[in-house]
């Protein structure tokens, strides 16, 4: 595996980068949806994220990356109790993937060669405690989307098929990307993403030139380029780890809770998931910035990405939901 393009070297697209970093600080935020034009660095960012993330500690040989030996599922027959450090899994879920590959199925190899009935874990098992990345998520077939919805909500993958009855933990951060011109995302799936950001090609020449120069340096003089930028990645990784430590001790004043609720009421977002995500994201941002208390500025910074995809669609509103969030934000939190 060659070293991917460093995360720190990605030019611009601050909202997308911030959203990804925040999910790394607090995986409980629940995923990022990146919608936008082609060639804006969506997949580059996700692949870079994989290299950026701090490693996790998992039981050796456990197919679902369990943190403690007792958490290993029975069917895996993990004998080792040793803990090893692994890179955070970032699993690609390709379009047109079969159900078998996603949830896991009977291990044909073992069935054929040894006549044993054994479970072969799928992508959901491998993505446990990590990231599941779906490119062109809006083109994903409906029955796979249904599967994902179910698992993303319960955090557990249950397989009842072919005489197998298996369950295992499947807690992952869902990262999706796509181009809205090619089809919309089902609202149910939209709601499962904690954050959503829209990316566009940079419009000013200098940024574009910088992108091309860095990409070219990466392609043609990889070692020097990586040497230059991996330091930035390391610093970012350190900041993420520090933020994870700081997160539980963070103070959340009542006024902030009040602000969250007021904002969501004004926007008319469905359910309470909006408030919860907004708060969690603001806390993650505060921790990442090293603040001791969550403030209104943090809320303001993350409101658009946490709420814009949860609004009722107003077909006659031409401006788009991001603009609506900004407008309401200006009214409610002056």
């Amino acid at each position, binding site marked *: 595996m060659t070293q991917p393009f460093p995360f720190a070297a990605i030019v611009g697209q601050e909202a997308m980068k911030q959203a990804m970093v925040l999910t790394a600080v607090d995986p409980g935020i629940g995923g990022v949806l990146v919608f936008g034009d082609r060639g804006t660095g969506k997949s580059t960012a996700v692949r870079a994220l994989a290299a950026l993330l701090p490693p996790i500690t998992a039981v050796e040989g456990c197919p679902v990356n369990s943190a403690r030996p007792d958490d290993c599922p029975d069917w895996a027959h993990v004998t080792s109790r040793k803990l090893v450090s692994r890179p955070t899994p970032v699993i690609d879920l390709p379009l047109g993937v079969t159900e078998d590959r996603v949830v896991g199925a009977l291990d044909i190899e073992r069935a054929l060669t040894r006549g044993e*009935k054994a479970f072969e874990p799928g992508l959901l098992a491998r993505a446990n405690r990590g990231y599941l990345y779906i490119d062109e998520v809006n083109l994903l077939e409906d029955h796979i989307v249904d599967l994902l919805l179910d698992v993303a909500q319960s955090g557990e993958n249950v397989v009842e098929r*072919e005489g197998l009855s298996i369950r295992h933990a499947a807690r992952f951060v869902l990262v999706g990307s796509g181009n809205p011109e090619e089809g919309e995302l089902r609202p149910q799936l939209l709601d499962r993403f904690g954050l959503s950001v829209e990316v566009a090609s940079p419009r000013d020449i200098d940024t574009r030139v910088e992108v091309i120069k860095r990409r070219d340096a990466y392609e043609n003089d990889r070692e020097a380029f990586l040497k230059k930028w991996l330091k930035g990645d390391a610093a970012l990784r350190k900041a993420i780890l520090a933020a994870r430590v700081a997160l539980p001790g963070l103070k959340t004043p009542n006024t902030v809770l009040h602000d969250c609720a007021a904002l969501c009421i004004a926007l008319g977002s469905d359910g309470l998931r909006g408030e919860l995500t907004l708060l969690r994201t603001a806390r993650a941002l505060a921790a990442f910035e090293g603040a001791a208390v969550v403030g209104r500025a943090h809320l303001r910074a993350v409101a658009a990405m946490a709420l814009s995809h949860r609004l009722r669609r107003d077909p006659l509103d031409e401006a788009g939901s991001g603009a609506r969030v900004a407008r309401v934000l200006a009214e409610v939190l002056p």
Partner: protein
Amino acid sequence: MPGAGVPVSAKTGASAAQAGDLPGADGAAAGPVAGAQRTAPAAVALEPWARVETALALLAVDPAGLKGLWLRARAGPLRDRVTLALSAIPLPARRLHPGIEDQALFGGLDLAATLAGGVAARTTGLLADPAALVLAMAERCPPGLAARLGAALDAPGHSLIALDEGDADEALPPGLADRLALFVDLEGLGWGDSQPVVPDLARLSAARAALPQVELPPDAAETLARVAATLGIASLRAPTLALAAARAGAALAGRSAVTDDDLRLACDLVYAHRALPAAAEAEPPPAEDTPPEDTLPDNLPPEPQDSDRFPEEMLVEAARAALPADLLARLAAARAARVAKGATGSGAAKAGNRRGRPLPSRAGRLGSGQRIDLVATLRAAAPWQPLRRAQAALAAGLDAGQSGGVADLSHPLSPRSPSTLPALLLRPSDIRLKRFMEMSDRVLIFAVDASGSSAMARLAETKGAVELLLAQAYARRDHVALLAFRGRAAELILPPTRSLVQTKRRLAGLPGGGATPLAHGLQMALAVGQQARARGLTPTIALMTDGRGNIALDGTANRAQAEADALQLARVIGAARLPALVIDTASRPQPALQTLARALGGTYLALPRADAHRMAVALSGALGG
């Protein structure tokens, strides 16, 4: 993205291209600036065939860096000349087809060898090591395969040659087209224009060796980025690929540094087909497909006005001159058609039990055109193997030469003899058959009266209802199409789509006013409905009007004839069994519309003073949604 008007102009454009050959745009490009050029000679666009040859040579120099070639041509001797030259690419060639399976791409368990040997045998996938992937019939490449190939191309090493035989309405998936540097279109080229391509292997390998040392002038990246922005190319992959092309060009020419000539060549080969058609570019900025919400500082797109920068200007011209004028329009039309198809193309499903969403396979007998689910069959048989083997061995021992009632359907690889038992013992009860469930998507065709009598407010409500229905359409797999009739004709505003983004854009500019050509509206609704049905969708027509037609099919303002025509068409629609719904938006129910609804064999709904929400609710109810 260009608007709805493009497909029509594209058709006329295509025929124009066949009549006249490649226009002498070279002169136009060179003319105004030639005298002022600093070092290089005038920007003369390459001759068409020389262009093809150059593209092939560049690809052979740096196949991995350029990522590949999009070759748009019909199968024939001319294309064979080009594909033959691909052998100069220093990578093993692998052929792919749109229906290729994951196992072939990524490798997997080799069932036959596993069964024969009793040990797991694996196949290597086609993507396992760097290769020149040749994708035949690339225009039919499904999104899933496009996504996989795109990911494979993002990793270094592979090169893809996409053989696109598409017509105006088909094209390579945009995700792949964006990743491939080069584009060659053989349409308009005759056998006489071409020569056999003889790759100069020694020169190519020398260029390959020199490639890493080629130096870039400091402003090359900036120039290429500016040219891309001027041409309206949003993707940032294009300038990166153009840079690689310029490098390869310099290496091929034996230069140690990239010059203006190389940049010009790169623009010609990499940018030309990506540029927006000149017509679309002339419009103000919103050609950008970004949704209105924008977190970036709201800069206007770069002003293409640095006219003192001659090289750039010339590069733009070179790119523009490189291709026949109508080609861009045609490509845009194909892109638009692809977009209009909506999401996964799941609507294109045809009848039959051979495709669709897979259901769990079930036990059954072979025959009657059923397909066996081999994997499920093996799974069913696998747990029993040790037991059956013991049994069979026992039977063989007791009664040599007979299999003791074991219905052995095993494959021909294992000879049946009592001493060597087959690797797999299958019984008929193990057979599993594939089953599929097919859900046809519904397309709601709104035929909307946009005449003067339908007040503008009413039109706005109708737009609102369309968008509301579409917003809920996901759960019901609905597509929506919209046609409006006014004045003397009907117009298809929105071809069947599921994209709300697209709908909003198209609906924003729906004009109103004029007479009521009801018959034209019905005629077009019928055409759209039948097209949709041919594509495997289930069409439903919703006609919204407030009165009787007053324009006959032949365009005269003859009320009696107009009504007769409308009724006639309504009967045709009824006979074609297209479900229909008439929504009367007049302030008082119109008996004529009730008659029309009866002729259509459809439902009649009177909705005076309906707002968008009520209309959507009533429609959902009437459609059993």
